[in-house]
Each structure stands twice: as structure tokens, then as C-alpha cells.
């Protein structure tokens, strides 16, 4: 094989990367556009006025708050359940282990609509009322896998002899967990939590099936605004908020695991 890539291949690579990113760049561009009705390219003049207008909009702030609360609670639940699952599975072998790991991955592998309508069916059969908590239940379910994946990958790379050494030196299981295991998995845990948070914060499919009609998370708020051209400037700014709130945790997660993980 030639050791240098052909120009064609380089060009194709650059084009695909551009394709993956220019639409998001456009949103950021138009969130600062003076023009409100059309998306003339390039925009004629720029303003930061819409950021102020959006921030003063009460329904926007409520939606943002609800999204932050849901993502926060779902992330905490995913951390607990995902870490327990990873701790249980990484060194053990038992009948049905593959089924358990499949079960953890399933909620994210099946399309959101399946998870959403399944939860909706269950809530309708058991007559549970929609609330913040029904949204959280759905989100926590598909967030477990991100924490699980990150933590189990770290466990596999951590030598078990460290834990044995800690026990031999007289530490109890709790002390071993606190002083040996936790520092080892801390960054992986944090990375998993960041991804879970990002995943939950902009989730929309499952949320539409499990939220009360008055409860708008930020993505649902945006979706409801989409058909109203008058609200476009505000929608664009809200979209920028979502981009920032999901991109930053992902970049942090990448930093936490860079160099230590093949993932």
C-alpha cells in the first residue's frame, strides 16, 4: 500500500467532516443574524439582541430548568445503577451474563420510539400520571449504558492485584472501595456521567411519550416553536444553548478518558 493518502481520499475525508459540522455552524451563525424571516446566505448584519430576548422569555427559562433537573437526576441514577452493574459484571462469570449485558445496551440500541411507546403503554396500563419523574425514569433507563461502558472499560484495565493488596494490608471492603477503587475509576465515572447528562439533556423522542402535556423540556420547547416562523430567532438561540450544554460535557468526557481508552 502507498503510505500517503491520495488527494481524492483526503478531499473526500475533508468533505465528509465538513458535511458533519457545517449545519451546526449555520445555526450559530443565524442565531446572531439581524434578519428574522429568511436565511439569506451569508447573513447581512449581526446582533446579540436575540440572546437577551430569549433569556427574558419565561417559558424558555422554565424549559431550560426542567431539562437541567431531568438530566441531573437521570445522571445520578445512571451513575449508581451503571457502576453497580459494571462492578458486578467485570470479573464474574455466571449463567445469563451475556443476557444481562445485552439488557443494559438494549434501551439505547432499539430506536427511541420503541422505548418511548413501551413506557407509555406501561404507564397507561398501570395508570401512572405523567410528571417530572416519568421523564426521569425513561432517561435513566437509556443512560445506564454510558456509565456502564466507561466504568467497565476502566475496571478491565485496572489490575485486580491492587484491590487484593489493599485487602491484604488490612483495609476493609469499604476502605478499599474509597481509597483504591474509586480513585481508579473516578475519571471514567465522570466521563460516563458527562455523556449521560448530554444524552439526557437533548433527548426528545422518549421524552415526548413520557412527559405531561404542560411539561416542556428544552428540546420539546424547541420542537413546539419550529412551526412558528415568528419565533425563529428565539428558537435559534435556544438551539445554541442546547449545542453548548451538550458539547461541553462531551469534550470534557473525551479529555477524561483520552489516552487511557480505545473508545
Amino acid at each position, binding site marked *: *500500500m*502507498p*503510505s*500517503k*493518502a491520495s488527494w481524492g*481520499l483526503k478531499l473526500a*475525508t475533508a468533505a*465528509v*467532516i465538513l*458535511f*458533519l*459540522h457545517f*449545519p*451546526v455552524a449555520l*445555526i450559530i451563525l*443565524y442565531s446572531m443574524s439581524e434578519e428574522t424571516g429568511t*436565511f439569506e*446566505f451569508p447573513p447581512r448584519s449581526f446582533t446579540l439582541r436575540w440572546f437577551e430576548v430569549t433569556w427574558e422569555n419565561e417559558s424558555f427559562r422554565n424549559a431550560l430548568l426542567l431539562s437541567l433537573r431531568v438530566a441531573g437526576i437521570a445522571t445520578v441514577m445512571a451513575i*449508581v*445503577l451503571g457502576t*453497580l452493574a459494571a462492578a*458486578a459484571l467485570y470479573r464474574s462469570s455466571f449463567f445469563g451474563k451475556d443476557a444481562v449485558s445485552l*439488557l*443494559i445496551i*438494549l*434501551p439505547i*440500541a*432499539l*430506536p*427511541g*420510539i*420503541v422505548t418511548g*411507546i*413501551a413506557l*407509555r*403503554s*406501561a404507564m397507561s*396500563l398501570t395508570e401512572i400520571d405523567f410528571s417530572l419523574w416519568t421523564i426521569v*425514569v425513561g432517561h*435513566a*433507563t437509556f443512560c445506564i449504558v454510558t456509565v456502564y461502558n466507561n466504568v467497565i472499560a476502566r475496571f478491565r484495565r485496572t489490575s485486580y492485584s491492587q484491590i487484593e493488596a489493599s*485487602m491484604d494490608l488490612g483495609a*476493609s*471492603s*469499604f476502605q478499599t472501595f474509597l481509597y483504591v477503587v474509586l480513585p481508579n475509576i473516578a475519571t471514567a465515572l465522570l466521563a460516563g456521567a458527562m455523556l449521560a447528562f448530554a444524552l439526557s439533556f*437533548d433527548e*426528545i*423522542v422518549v421524552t415526548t*411519550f413520557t412527559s405531561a402535556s404542560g411539561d416542556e423540556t428544552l*428540546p420539546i420547547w*424547541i*420542537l413546539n416553536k419550529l412551526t412558528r416562523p415568528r419565533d425563529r430567532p428565539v428558537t435559534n438561540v435556544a*438551539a445554541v444553548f*442546547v*449545542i453548548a450544554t*451538550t*458539547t461541553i460535557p*462531551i469534550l470534557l468526557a*473525551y479529555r477524561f478518558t*483520552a489516552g487511557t481508552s480505545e473508545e
Partner: protein
Amino acid sequence: MMATITRRPSITRRISTFFYHYPGLSLFLLLLPPLAWLLIVYIGSLAALLVQSFYTIDPMSMLVKEEFTLSTYEELFTAANIDVIKRTVYLAAAVTVGCAVLAFPLAYYMARYANRRIKGLLYLAVMLPLWSSYLVRVYAWRLILVKEGVINSVFEQLGLGSVVEWVIDRPYIGGTGTSLASTYLGMFLVFVYIWLPYMILPIHAALERVPKSLIDASSDLGARPGYTFRRVIFPLAFPGVVAGSIFTFSLTLGDYIVARVIGNSVFYIGPAVSSNLSFNIPLSAAFTVVSVVIMVIYLLIARRLGAFDAL
């Protein structure tokens, strides 16, 4: 001094020792919360979904009648609904092919030519859209495709406005509306854009696993680079393509946001599920069960093609 040594171990120490002696029990207790959660919330819900699909709506009261019947499935398999299912499957298949064509060169460059630093950057550039802002990324295409959007604006400034109209009028890729957002081509583009990272990563992983020695051996035996690519590299990377296609196919099949934000008035499985939801949950459930069955068939084929080893 003696007293300290003979003091009974603390309660936490005794609990800790107890668990150390019963690893099976500690495994069980570790696994219990996540497993119970997933079994009750998730598997329970999927079971509820299946049950719902065998209920039906009472035509008089418009309420769900909770007794076993196949009439919802009879209602599902009418010509109009079968068209919806077929159209969605075609779209999902087209999107899968589109993703594979775009993903392969990038994955190939990443795996074979990029140095460590570039590879890290490219990896991040692929990961970021995978995890972030799904709705926002769909919405961005609305800015691009609508009548007063970016594409129309650029083409009109170039004096090529008629090209856009010509595309909209084409059969199969065009549509009935007045903008690109209402065309099949528009939906296809958005889906390819949204799911592309899911195709890039497994192909990249599969290409990374092709041993360098095999490629050297092939060229030592006289194969030209193109021949080596066709006969050695591509067959080894193909399970990666199939693995990626699982995601692109299943995600397109189940999506209903893209059709709502972009698409035309034509129905797909996703929108059909959500529009029936408020007045006919059993029909929504039956639609979903059908798409799960299609997915399971797809997964079985994918497994035969070796996709699971490439995940």
C-alpha cells in the same frame, strides 16, 4: 495495648468480612438494583407494549378495551398501512447505503493514513455529533432546506434557482411541496447526516483490525493496491459496514422527529405511531411491534454476515 488487639472488629469490618466470604451474595446484591430496574421498567414496558397491541379501541366509547383480540393487527395490515411500512423500509435502506458510501472513505483515511494527532481530532469530530444535540442538528437542516433557506438563497444568488425547482419536480427524489424540505431527497440527506457517525465508527474499528502483515503479504505476492483493497481490505472491513448498518437502518425505521421537522405530508412508521398515540394506543403499539420484528429479522441477517464480531 492488649485491649486494642482483642477488641471485636467494628461493625463495618464485620460486614465487609462477611461479604468477602460470600462472593456470590455480593455479586447478587451488586446486580440486584440495576437488573431489577431494567427488568421492571424496561422489559416490563416492552411486555406492556406487546399486550397493548393485542387490545383494541372500542368504537363507541373510544376507550381501550382490555381483552385479547387480533383486530388491531387486522387494522394494521391494510393496504395504506403496508405502504407506510414499505416506504419506511425503502427509505431506511437508501439511508443505510448513503451512509456507507460517505463513511467508508473517512473511516479508511482514519485507519490507514492519519497520524496519532489527526486521528484523535477526526475521532472527536465524529464523536461529537453522535452524542450531541440530535434535535438541533435536524433543525439546522430546516434552515438549509426550506424555501427561504440557505440552499435557495445561494442558488438564486448564483442565478440557478430553476435547478432547485427541477429537483423538486423529479419523481422518486422530489416531492409535492414547494421546497426541498418536502422532498424525499431532503429527508434522505437529513437522515444520512444524522446517522453517519454510527456508520463511521464500526467501519473504522473493522479497518483498524485488518493486520498490516496481510496487506504486506498481498503486495509481496504481486497484488496492486487496488486489487489488495478489493480482495483483502474490503472483505475484512465488510462486517463493520453491516454493524454500522444495524444502527442506520433501525434508527431511520424508528425516527419520527425528522419527518415532523423536515418531511412532507407522506407517512412513515414513526409519525404513524405518534399520530395514533392519543386516540389509538393499540394501533401505535402494533406498528411498533412490526418495526421491532423487522429489526429482529435484520439483526439475524446481520449476525450471519459477521456483524456482531465487528461491534
